[in-house]
């Protein structure tokens, strides 16, 4: 189709090609074209963080970036968190510390927390709260979410 653009990008370590319209966001491309529905839409205007992904190492709201902008980039989504070795320590901690209730915000929080731990491996409570402030959760009241991230950081530090 004449009004579609070809985008080549790396998603969770795999090279992907897709056709999209210029008006489509990265979130739409991930969800509706690549069928990676882990990233969620809570607002489509950058308010809630449910669509959080990591683009070239930078925590990003996928709803606020155009799909064509990820040409040649490395995109990380929640689907890439677990590895052959099992769940990522963050995923494990979210399960063990009941860091989720309905779970709609969970992929976004996991990606924000991953971006945090990539940068600050042993954050304190304040730093965790600061990094997660761009993600809204209406279910948990944040207590168990914050504990989950702190626990995952401990688990990862203990492994090193």
């Amino acid at each position, binding site marked *: 189709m004449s009004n579609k653009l070809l985008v080549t990008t790396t998603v969770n370590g795999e090279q992907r090609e897709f056709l999209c319209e210029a008006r489509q966001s990265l979130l739409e491309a991930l969800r509706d074209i690549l069928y990676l529905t*882990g990233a969620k839409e809570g607002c489509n205007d950058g308010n809630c963080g449910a669509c959080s992904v990591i683009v070239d190492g930078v925590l990003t709201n996928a709803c606020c970036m155009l799909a064509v902008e990820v040409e040649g980039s490395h995109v990380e989504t929640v689907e890439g968190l677990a590895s052959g070795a099992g769940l990522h320590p963050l995923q494990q901690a979210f399960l063990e510390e*009941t860091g989720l209730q*309905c*779970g709609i915000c969970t*992929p976004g929080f*996991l990606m924000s927390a991953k971006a945090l731990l990539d940068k600050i491996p042993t954050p304190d409570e304040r730093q965790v709260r600061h990094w997660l402030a761009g993600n809204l959760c209406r279910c*948990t009241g944040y*207590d*168990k979410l914050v*504990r989950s991230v702190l626990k995952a950081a401990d688990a990862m530090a203990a492994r090193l």
Partner: protein
Amino acid sequence: MSKTTPDNGFNVVGTSPLRPDGLDKVTGRAQFADDFHLPNMLHGKILRSPHAHARILSIDTRAAAALPGVRAVVTGADFPAVRHELLNQGAAGVLNIREMSENCMARDKALYDGHAVAAVAADNPHDAELATNLIQVEYELLPPVMNVCAAMADDAPVIHENFHPGAFIAPTEKYLPNASRIQLGNGDPAQGFAEADLVLEREYTSETIHQGYIESHITTVIWDSNDYVTVWTATQGQFALRDHLADIIQVPLSNINVVPLEIGGGFGGKERLYIDPVAALLAKKAQRPVKIAMRRDEVFRATGPSSGTYIKLKFGVKRDGALTAAHLHLAYEAGAYAGGPLFLAIMSATSRYNIPNIHIDGFDVIVNKPTMRPYRAPGAPQALFAVEQMIDELAHELEMDPIEFRMQNLMRSGDRLVPGLPLAPIDTEKMLETVQAHPHYQAPLEGPHRGRGLAYSIWFNIGEISSAHIQVNPDGSVALTTASPDLSGTRISLAMQAAEMLGIDVEQVSATVSDTRSIGFSLPSVGSRTTYSTGAVVCEVAQEILQQMCARAALLWETQADQVSVQNGVFSNQTDPGQTMTFNDLAARMFETGGPISYHKTGHTQSFIPGTAAHLVDVKVDPETGKVDILRYTIFQDVGKAVHPDYVEGQMQGATVQGIGMALNEEYCYDKNGCLQNASLLDYRLPTSLDVPMLETVILESPNPAHPFGVRGCGEISIAPPPAAIANAIYDAVGVRLHSMPMSPHKVCAAIREQHQVNMDAQERPSKPS
């Protein structure tokens, strides 16, 4: 079978196992409504009224229909006239289907900013949205009525020529053109006030608020050539949705199947339908499946928020601390159609204190806002904001300790509630004693502008109708199916109850939520009822399964079923004590003993199960900016029995933070024309992780006799105390009372300044010679 209930302690209940559905949620694999796709599916978008109150003169959809990629357009004219206007749903009240249909799509008048007026289905959501913008609607503007006081004023514009009165689950009487009323009372208030040594009168207001679930409303509908309609959506009640949809689109109930997908939060706001009939009619016209996903601004403008209020209280008390009389004027917004949370507000306003002479005047008030729907302990936070501040103020005036004052007037099991029924068994005293003895209550407050506040509440959990099905498989695994959508971990709390009853490991039980074709009727997951009410039915079904299995064992042992006992999943032959068999071994032999083992039940449980909560909060108030910081927070809640304590704590904390948001930030801001100005999550201002500290929880367990393990339910009550507790803490910190929610910085600032002025004036006045 001689014995099934564990009498000394629990094996599963009270532990915190990992929940199986959690795995899909941390890996991104869980299927929420927006993740659902069908081949050949169209996308629907809705055009909404930009006016709060307007007559619709004409709608021209020709340009939209002509846009390439557009497959169907519908307006109010495509909605069938409803056959039976009123639908009696028993304990769920009498529902007005005509109004429900008009709320989904306006007919003659648009009643609020965001009221749907037309819809389009197109190949993709962008084209659908473009097409809606091509629809021409001619409006005649009418004056909007934007709050309860304006709606009840003498010369208020009339919103409905006629309306059917009725608050949520209770009848009301038409009283004014825009309002209906409930009056309740006991004793002789005039006499009670005459006996009082101190009488206080206060007014309180609050703004419209929203549940704020992070997942919007999303539905996908197929209407096939046999007029079978299938709906895949996120709902708190698949049966309620089915029943309402059938009446609105005029299709037999048995033609509809509603399949509940994972739900991304509801809090009461997803038990009513908005877009499903629209998607159904578009699907019928286009003869293709249609998906509609609401944008976030549509969620704010056109779903079911919770009432703004005007509350006036008059309380009388004796010098010794005995409450003698109370008068409550509770005016709650109903929104565009009658039926707000008024009755539940009345139930929860003063229940927990015995007031011998009381009169409650409740008003359900129609305004040009979206139709109010339940929001977690509907109506209670607003009523408590008023009543618990009044109680605190009276205690201060009497120079009594606020806990002692509450203790003196405390309602106990068996005492009469205002509507007459007795308070079901619960230990109301223990709650206050626990607060008193807690280190937080004892801890000194250090630093300037810091204060501590307390609020105490009772809320009544719903029982009523639930269904459950259990199937035992030959490998010993157990499939548990219910009709109760899982908002936050109830699949595991129900699986745990089944495992406890059956005496097996929770890992053996897999719990799922069924569509409306595969299980009996159930009321929605509302009213803190799933773990309690559905749980009780699950226990009954599990008991029946054990009976069946005892009979199977009896066959193998050639004895009578009543000679077989079962304890912790081991069946024993009473006539031959050496003979035992495990649950798994017996399951493996089901086909030798008569075939499959399964049981289904639609059961009924008691309603008005009380739960209590007390919240203790320390705040710091910045007198320059009016900003209130939460320094320490302790939630005390009596849940009867905590089935999965970690998720119970999660309910307590989540509800509390919603209450904190309501107390300090959240409100609908309308302009003078009645248009919503802050229809986004950022501008509406949900609390973030930076707004709250860690939240300490204290679980109390005074058992509920109506549940085999004593479960009361725990989901709602903790949203109610935060506004009052924080208001009382602000008073303790800076000596001002806030009478208007949210207690946003500018209001706190203004109150401090006003008080400062009063103090200055008092100082400047020349003191009289004594």
